[in-house]
């Protein structure tokens, strides 16, 4: 049994324009202590997967089929029970997770007391410990969020996410708003802190560089479907799905120079309202066959492709 | 074109929100009544020759004991048909309401744009004035302006100018909410990159304010405009009720209510009841419509 199991999860939005399938039969597992990356173009369903796990899908969207299990127990019906305590979330904008009117210390202690048995001095000591772990002086517990730089705030958000001692942290583009150098510090910190506690992380990003440096396994999403999953090494060095191959090939590398023309996947990802029949990638796929235009490929041997699922 | 409009999210949301739809229908019906009052009303309530004192105090739907005439909503002390009086009163109330909102809007949008776009001392001066004005109830401000305007006008012009003065007082007392909202939106928009894109091709500030920023503040203006219309109608009624508004020669709903209250305790309830209900329904409908518009444009706030 894995720590987290997502099985055939589908999410739909019903509006006057019809039904929009934001997640289509997504299945994946997360092991204890693992860093799982989720990549894909914007709108592919990365955040939707994270939000579905936490039961945070905006109405009128709802889970129409499938199951999400934490340690074997379904959490679809009552996500409030696990939200914040067993699974925490880190968002792109650190300010959205911090209360501007309360000191960092007050916010940390509040979370610790809410989710762990620690009270009073014990909670305060734990807060100081967390601050030290994120490399911020414990004296600054009395500071307010606005007194910190963007990178420091995101560290504090990590401390806040760790405060409840969760099994899983879902980090949705946690460093997109930060500088490269700060990004490296923040992600290193996240890895370090989580490894120390055996916490698993789902790292949502659209940056292949981040995936390459900070994850163990990667799931690739396209138009609401999980199209390939595997170890980071395999995905980057020997991707099998034609979309993943295109994604890797179009990432600029240090071998390039001004005369390089980057590889370019033809066309654009279709909007969810106009997903083609069969494989969602078929109009852009260089090796598509007739079958691809008719039958939706399922995830077999970690790849959802009619021609690439063997072995 | 019409088909596209009927298919819009606006119409979709409207049809799915019964309160908003009913409010809109009521607003439209009342506005039509006001507009076409001279044709709809059975009598002209200000044509003294058509009024018979003998018809005074006829209850609604009952034949007058002397003349045998019937009035749908009864008649007042003078024998005037109350139904006609309400239609004409609605006309005055709505006219004053619309005109003062347009005045407040023009003033507020202009000042808000200037304050937000120019910043610095222009912003400081405009917003301080707004702050000071906000600390007083707007009806008080309106009465103050009303008093000053009456003081300036020669006595013989007062009656003729009464409606204009009323519009001026209400308009000047309601600009602040427009200015504040427009200023806020302007400050947000002015920092966006598309403004830089227009500046770098040498467009003037005036051009940028009018063609780029203004279209972006229209939605909030529409919301505030609708809600302010309800406020302006109430303000007008209040002023007229206090006797400082619409003159008896051109009675608004507020004037009718003031006249009606004299007879409330002597049993002629209908003289105050029907104008008051009309006013209530009118103001409430605009208010609900405004609330829906706000939710429609800004679903996150609700």
């Amino acid at each position, binding site marked *: 049994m894995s720590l987290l199991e997502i099985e055939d999860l589908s999410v739909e939005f019903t509006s006057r324009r019809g039904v929009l399938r934001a997640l289509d039969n997504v299945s994946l597992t997360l092991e204890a202590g693992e860093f799982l990356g989720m990549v*894909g*173009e*914007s*709108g592919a369903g990365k955040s939707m997967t994270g939000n579905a796990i936490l039961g945070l899908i905006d109405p009128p969207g709802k889970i129409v089929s499938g199951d999400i299990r934490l340690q074997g127990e379904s959490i679809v019906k009552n996500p409030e029970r696990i939200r914040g305590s067993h699974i925490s979330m880190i968002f792109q904008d650190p300010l959205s997770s911090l209360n501007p009117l309360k000191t960092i210390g007050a916010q940390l202690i509040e979370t610790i007391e809410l989710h762990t048995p620690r009270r009073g001095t014990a909670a305060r000591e734990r807060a100081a410990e967390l601050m030290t772990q994120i490399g911020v002086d414990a004296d600054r517990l009395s500071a307010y969020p606005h007194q910190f730089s*963007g990178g420091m705030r995101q560290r504090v958000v990590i401390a806040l996410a760790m405060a409840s001692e969760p099994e899983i942290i879902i980090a949705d583009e946690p460093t997109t708003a*930060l*500088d*490269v*150098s*700060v*990004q*490296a510090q923040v992600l290193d910190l996240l890895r370090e802190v989580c490894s120390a506690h055996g916490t698993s992380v789902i790292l949502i990003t*659209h*940056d*292949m*560089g*981040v995936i*390459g*440096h*900070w994850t163990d396994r990667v799931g690739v999403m396209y138009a609401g479907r999980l199209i390939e999953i595997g170890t980071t090494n395999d995905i*980057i*060095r020997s991707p099998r799905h034609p979309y993943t191959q*295109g*994604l*890797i090939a*179009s*990432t*600029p*590398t*240090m*071998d*390039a*120079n*001004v005369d*390089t*023309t*980057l*590889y*370019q*996947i033809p066309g*654009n*990802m279709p909007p969810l309202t106009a997903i083609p029949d069969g494989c969602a990638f078929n109009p852009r796929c260089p090796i598509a066959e007739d079958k691809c235009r008719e039958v939706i490929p399922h995830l077999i041997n970690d790849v959802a492709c009619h021609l690439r699922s063997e072995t | 074109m019409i088909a596209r409009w009927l298919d819009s999210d606006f119409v979709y949301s409207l049809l799915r929100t019964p309160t908003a739809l009913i409010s809109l229908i009521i607003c439209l019906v009342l506005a039509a009544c006001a507009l076409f009052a001279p044709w709809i009303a059975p009598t002209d309530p200000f044509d003294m020759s058509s009024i018979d004192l003998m018809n005074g105090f006829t209850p609604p739907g009952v034949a007058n004991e002397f003349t045998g005439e019937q009035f749908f909503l009864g008649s007042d002390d003078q024998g005037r048909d109350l139904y006609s009086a309400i239609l004409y009163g609605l006309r005055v109330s709505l006219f004053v309401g619309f005109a003062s909102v347009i005045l407040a809007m023009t003033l507020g949008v202009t000042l808000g744009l200037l304050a937000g776009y120019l910043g610095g001392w222009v912003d400081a001066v405009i917003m301080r004035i707004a702050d000071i004005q906000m600390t007083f109830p707007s009806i008080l401000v309106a009465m103050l302006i009303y008093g000053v305007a009456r003081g300036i006008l020669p006595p013989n012009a007062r009656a003729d100018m009464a409606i204009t003065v009323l519009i001026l007082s209400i308009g000047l007392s309601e600009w602040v909410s427009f200015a504040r909202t427009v200023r806020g939106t302007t400050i947000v928009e002015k920092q*966006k*990159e*598309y403004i*830089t*894109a*227009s*500046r*770098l*091709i*040498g*467009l003037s500030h005036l051009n940028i304010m009018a063609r*780029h920023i203004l*279209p*972006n503040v229209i939605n909030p203006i529409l919301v505030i405009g609708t809600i302010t219309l309800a406020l302006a109608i109430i303000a007008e009624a209040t002023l007229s009720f206090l006797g400082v508004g619409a003159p008896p020669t051109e009675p608004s709903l507020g004037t009718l209510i003031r006249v009606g209250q004299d007879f409330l305790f002597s049993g002629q309830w209908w003289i105050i009841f029907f104008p008051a209900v009309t006013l209530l329904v009118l103001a409430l409908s605009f208010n609900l419509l405004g609330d829906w518009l706000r939710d429609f444009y800004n679903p996150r706030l609700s």
Partner: protein
Amino acid sequence: MSFVEVDEVSRVFHKRSLFSKSQGVQALKNVSLSIQQGETYALVGESGSGKSTLARIVVGVDNASSGQVSIAGHQISTSMPKENRRDIQMVFQSPYASLNPRWRVHDLVAEPLRAFGITQGRKATVQRVTELLEQVGLQADDARKFPHQFSGGQRQRISIARALSSNPKFIVCDEPTSALDVSVQAQVLNLLKDLQSELGLTYLFITHDLAVVKTMAHQIGVLKQGVLIEEQSADDLFASPQHQYTKDLLAAAPVLSVA
């Protein structure tokens, strides 16, 4: 003399306050650089290092506190004659904030055409807008749509079409692909490169992604706290960075190594 000359440019922002004498933030300190015609000069540096401030001065929407900028021999300032602005355009970071959401694509692309009186009459304008949209890989009937009907990458194409409409010689690109996904980024970067070789454009390219710099730049400048601390040709900078800060920056960059 080079096509673009930035000479000892400094910029101080004064924070006005009632209670204290004006405190200055020095966003740029004596920055000098030059860009050759037809080349790409990449400016890298962390957030707040002054990249966008320099960009705004170079395109003439902000003034330097001291120093000067000249492009094609014309002095650049906020009060320069409108005619001199034709040669200079800019593409921005945010595909959302750089297009007025209330305007149709046609009007967005045509705004510079009108401002400079480049096309006469509605018909000529429509035709030029169509040409421009096709040049950046969009379609003629996209002109009737509003920006929100497009994806991020398509919006950047609209911005590029707009920037090209005044036939500029020089385009400042301020992080034009930071908000885009890799596969879309590749499309936009290739488009910018194709346009450069086709039209002989000169770019000032601002980014914090070193792999992007590698594929785009001929010359690279590193900005740190308003100071240009290093400037080298692209090959030399990556091969032998001189300044410790540049070395750190190269080390921190999460670049894919497929090999």
